[in-house]
Structures are given as C-alpha cells and as structure tokens.
C-alpha cells in the first residue's frame, strides 16, 4: 500500500524531469484536443441549429374554393387541437393580401377581391422529434388529406432529405475526427513518454540491476502518461470555454440568430477520460523498443 503511494509519487516526479519536453507535450496535447474540441463545438452547434429547424416539417394545405368560411374555420380549430407546433391560416382575402404585398407597390386588388381566385390555405408545422419521422410525416399527411373539403396537401420532401444528409455527414465526420484526435494525442504523448523513457533508460536499467521488479519500473510511467493526458485535456477545455464565451454572439444576427453553446458536460467528461485513457495507452506504446 505504502509502495503504491510511493509509485504514484514517482509518476508525479517524472513530470518534473525534462521540463521542456513536458511543456512541449502537454502543449501539443492541449492544442490537439483544443482543435478537436473546436471541431466538436462546431458540429454540435450546427447540429443544434439544424435540428431546431429541420426536425420540424411543414405542410401547405389547400381547401376547395368557395367552401363556406365556417366549415374551414371549424377544421382549423380541429387541426389546432392536434399535436402540432404551429398553424398559420389564410382566408382567401388574407392570401390575396399576402400576394399583393409581395408585389410591386400600387397594385390595386380591388377587382380581384370581388372575384377572389384564391382558395383558403393553411401552413401546418409538426415536430418530428419523437418516433419514426417517416411514419409521423405520412400519418399527418393522411389525416390532413382526409379532412372534408381539403383539396390538396403539398410538402417539400427535400426538407427531410436535408436533415438526413446533415446527420449522415456529421456522423461520417464525427467518428473519424474523434479517431484522429486520439491518434494524434496518442502519438504526441507516446513521444514524450518515449523521450522520458529514453532519458530514463539508464535509470531503468540500473533499477532493474539493483533488484527492482518490472512493476516498480513501469507503473510510474503509466501514471505520468495518464497525468499528461488529463492535464492537457483540462487545459484545452478551459481554453475552449474561453473561446466559446468570446465568440458566443458571433452568429447572433439576422437571419441566423444562432447562439454558440458550449459542449454539454457529458462530452467534456468523456473527452477528459478519453485523453487520460490515451495517456495510459501511450505509456504502453512507449515501451516498444527502438
């Protein structure tokens, strides 16, 4: 037990040797994981933005022309009672107004309003957040189409494709990225440990010659690796948080209105433990003879 404490202490002492090399390494670990964290932050925020708009799905519903206003209004009430996000309704008059507004200045709708060519319409927005989005989208489509008096329901299938594409891109980039981060960190940490070890080669040999067990020799190296990973990770998370605070409002303007959020705790904790693990791993890597 006392021995274990002693070995832990030796691992810590190791960090004090080759000071410059340690600084270089932890620096490199910091920068690498910072870069990776930045990438993560980017993806995470784009993801937030995409899902907050793209998991909603819109239908444009057209009723038959000339339907009594009360009937249509009744159906609007019904739709409103469904599990939807929002409903925008347009009587033929409102639709015409929108149309006219979108046109050049002094366009007189007078004669149009007398024989309005437009049907009543509504814009229904639902959330695809829960369950199978495909099924949900289809179900809602049927329900809308089966409302009496509804002539046509249009929607943009591309909208869903976009969201899906984004997800597939992220997942394609995400894991390779994380993998990369690991490999680099591993390489960098292993490199210093290697250096540490080469530097300690004589010491290790002498330790073994005076009767130290290989456990006594290897364990401190492992601790050193873990500490390097952990320290580098902590510093890079601090840096990242600083950056996030600085650029929080960078995209907070029309039409984006995106606030850059920090990574959730789960992410940061896994980042840290991953880096620590990598540090330990590389202490094994460093044992390879050269």
């Amino acid at each position, binding site marked *: 037990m006392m021995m274990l404490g002693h070995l832990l202490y030796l691992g810590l002492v190791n960090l004090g040797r080759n000071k410059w090399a340690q600084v270089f390494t932890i620096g490199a670990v910091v920068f690498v994981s910072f870069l990776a964290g930045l990438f993560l932050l980017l993806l995470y925020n784009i993801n937030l933005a995409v899902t907050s708009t793209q998991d909603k799905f819109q239908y444009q519903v057209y009723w038959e022309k000339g339907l009594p206003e009360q009937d249509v209004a009744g159906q609007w009430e019904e739709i409103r009672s469904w599990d939807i996000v929002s409903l925008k309704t347009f009587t033929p008059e409102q639709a015409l107004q929108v149309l006219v507004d979108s046109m050049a200045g002094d366009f007189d709708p007078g004669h149009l309003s007398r024989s309005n060519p437009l049907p009543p319409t509504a814009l229904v927005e639902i959330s695809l957040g829960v369950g199978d989005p495909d099924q949900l989208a289809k179900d809602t489509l049927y329900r809308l189409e089966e409302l009496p008096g509804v002539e046509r329901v249009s929607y943009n299938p591309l909208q869903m494709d976009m969201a899906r594409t984004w997800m597939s891109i992220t997942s394609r980039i995400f894991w390779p990225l994380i993998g990369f981060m690991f490999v680099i960190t591993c390489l960098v940490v292993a490199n210093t440990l290697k250096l540490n070890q080469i530097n300690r080669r*004589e010491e290790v*040999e002498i330790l073994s010659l005076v009767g130290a*067990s290989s456990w006594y020799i290897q364990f401190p190296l492992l601790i050193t690796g873990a500490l390097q990973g952990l320290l580098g990770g902590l510093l890079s998370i601090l840096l990242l948080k600083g950056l996030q605070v600085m650029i929080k409002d960078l995209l907070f303007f029309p039409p984006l209105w995106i606030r850059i959020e920090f990574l959730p705790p789960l992410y940061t904790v896994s980042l840290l433990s991953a880096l620590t693990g990598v540090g330990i791993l590389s202490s094994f890597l460093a044992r390879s003879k050269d």
Partner: protein
Amino acid sequence: MIRVRHLSHSFGRYWALKNITFSLEKGDFLFLTGASGAGKTTLMRILHGSIPLQRGISQIAGFDLGTITPGKLHQLRRQVAIVFQDFRILSERTVWDNVALPLVVKGMVKTQVQKRVRAVLRGLRLDKKSWCLCREISGGEQQRVAVARAVVVNPKVLLADEPTGNLDRNLAMQLMDVFRQFHVHGTTIVFATHNEDLIKSQHNAKILSLKEGAVVDANWPLEESEA
C-alpha cells in the same frame, strides 16, 4: 553458493568464455584475474543474470541461471549484488539516493534505510559527499558509491568488478577492509582485479586466472569431488 560447470559464452562468433568450471562455498573469497579482455566481466554479468546463460550450468545463491524467469530475476538480484567496472550509478542523483536505491526498491522502511546507508557511507569515507550529485564527484568517489550500493543490501554474494581501478593505495586497502568485514560475516565474494598487491594482501583467498576466456590457473581444485 556458486556453482559453475562447463560454462561457455560467445558474442557472435567470438568465444568470450570457454568451458569454465569452478565452485565456491558460502564465505569464500575469490580473486578473478586475467589480462584485459580475458572474460572477467562477462563471467560476472552471467552470474548476476544480466547476460543470459548460453551453455553449461550456473547456480548462484540457490537460483539456477539456466531456468530463472525474467519475473524472478529481481529476487536473485536482491541476494547477489554487483559492483560494475563502469560503476552504473545514477549521475543525476545524490550519493545518498544511489546508495539507498536497492533498499528503497525492496520497500524497506525509511528509518532502516537511513541507518544502513549512513553506516556504509561512513565505512567508505563518503559521508561528506552524501548530498552531492554523482556527476559532481571525482572518479574514485564514484567508484566507492558503486561499492557502497552493492554492500548496503548485505548480499549473500558480492561480485566486484575491478572496484579499485580509480583508487589510490590507501583507499584500496580501506575498501579491502570493508570487503573483509562482509567476508567475515559470511558473504561470498568474487573480486576481479589487475592489482597484484591486493591479491597478496588477502590470505586464504582463492585465485582464478583467465586467459582468452579459459581458466589457466587456480589455487584450489576446480572439479567437485563427485560424491
């Protein structure tokens, strides 16, 4: 305590040791002599387990070097201490740390360690240099640190490879005194040296002379009486 039979060792095609046979009992004192390159260091390193045994039989302090596993080697080395010809001390550590190392590595308690280290350093006239870094002491002082590190564990067998090469006559004699003390208390000692004065100074010592890897002279019967 030591039993070597038909031991041969080659580095590539060069035979550094050829068919060596001898035995030592507990408490024996052996001088190993021979010209430069005769194989003295090689023999010591085999006995200490730092070169694997190639041919023949070699037993020391109850361990068989032909069958010992790497995981058990450190146990052997806690019984069999060695003074290297090139010292092999940690130049960036203090004299004290170097001498304490074999005890710390065993997990000995601190007060014990201090007592032992202090005694040994005093015996080798190193007490004034305890807190100097080993790269900052003279050649002869380094050599004595190497000796101190070996004797501090109170080994069953002490292998000393040319431990007086950098010492003047006075210090060499003092060092012999230290060795004799251990010898008296039952430590088996193998002492490689070129210094004939030292050999003469020790009575009832066994002497083994090597030449180009072979035994050319010995002052006691090498073959065991096959009882």
